[in-house]
């Protein structure tokens, strides 16, 4: 939960980093403002247990932040910012394996060969 929340904040930060760090005119500014909301949206949806799995999409988005600074012209601080944010997002993405036991054991039960709770399974519970 906290790891995805941090990633969501970092994504929002990237939306405004070009204006703050002064690289709105650089292509890197467009990278930040494109990848930022993508990472932020994925991480925000992934804060909940039921939709945690979408977090892996950030392993597609974040590496762009690591690679782009090496090829694009921008102030050093902007490049370092993009790369560090990319590294942190990649590192935090796997943290927080979802517990979907309260949701009928979750999405994997829909896959072929995966067992799903039968009609005789437990229902409700203390906080149900």
């Amino acid at each position: 939960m906290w790891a995805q929340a941090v990633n969501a904040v970092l994504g929002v930060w990237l939306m405004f980093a070009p204006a703050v760090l002064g690289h709105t005119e650089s292509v890197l500014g467009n990278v930040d403002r494109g990848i930022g909301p993508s990472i932020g949206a994925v991480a925000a949806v992934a804060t909940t247990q039921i939709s945690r799995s979408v977090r892996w999409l950030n392993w597609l988005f974040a590496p762009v932040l690591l690679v782009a600074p090496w090829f694009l012209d921008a102030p050093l601080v902007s490049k370092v910012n993009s790369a560090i944010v990319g590294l942190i997002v990649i590192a935090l993405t796997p943290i927080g394996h979802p517990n979907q036991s309260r949701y009928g054991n979750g999405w994997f039960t829909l896959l072929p060969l995966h067992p799903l709770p039968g009609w005789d399974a437990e229902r409700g519970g203390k906080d149900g």
Partner: protein
Amino acid sequence: MSGQSRELTPPGWRTNPSSWGERLPIVGLALVGLAIALYLTAFQYELVDTIWEPFFGDGSRTVLTSATSTILPVSDGALGAFGYLLDAMTGVIGGTKRWRTMPWIVIVFGIFVGPLGTISILLVIAQPVLYDSYCTLCLASAVISLAMIPPAVDEVLASSQEVKRVWKAGGNWWRFFWGLDSSPVEAGVDPEQYPAAVEGN
């Protein structure tokens, strides 16, 4: 919900994802989104002259009158309003058993909620990259779209599991999906395999 939980809660679930306590907040968010989208649409069709923009100066005006916003026959604001309306409608249709009595509406609901959130994010990405501006209410709309996704998809999971159970038990899952057979037993599942039916459900 203790007395009714046996009937209303999906097998292996703690709570009923189709309860009004879970659905009404989503419908509420959709109605707030609808109100915002209608306001943005009113500006785009010049029914109101100014747009509320506390943070980004001319940002909202630039974004809402941009080439992207009129790429389709209707403005993107109008499209968003229509999307929120569909979200609210498919959110209220059906009772608290709908995860198993009308799986199709739950799936349609999920389909409306998911892509609307995705489109919102794509529009947020387009704003600064193409026009170097942000639009406060457009960002708010995107946040609302995203907030609707997690509470909506749990119901999709419950319905999908029930359809798979009917299929695994040899029932007519296609008729069950469309709510044509209101229970697994009606869809051809052996009552022995469906203890809820034995209990008079």
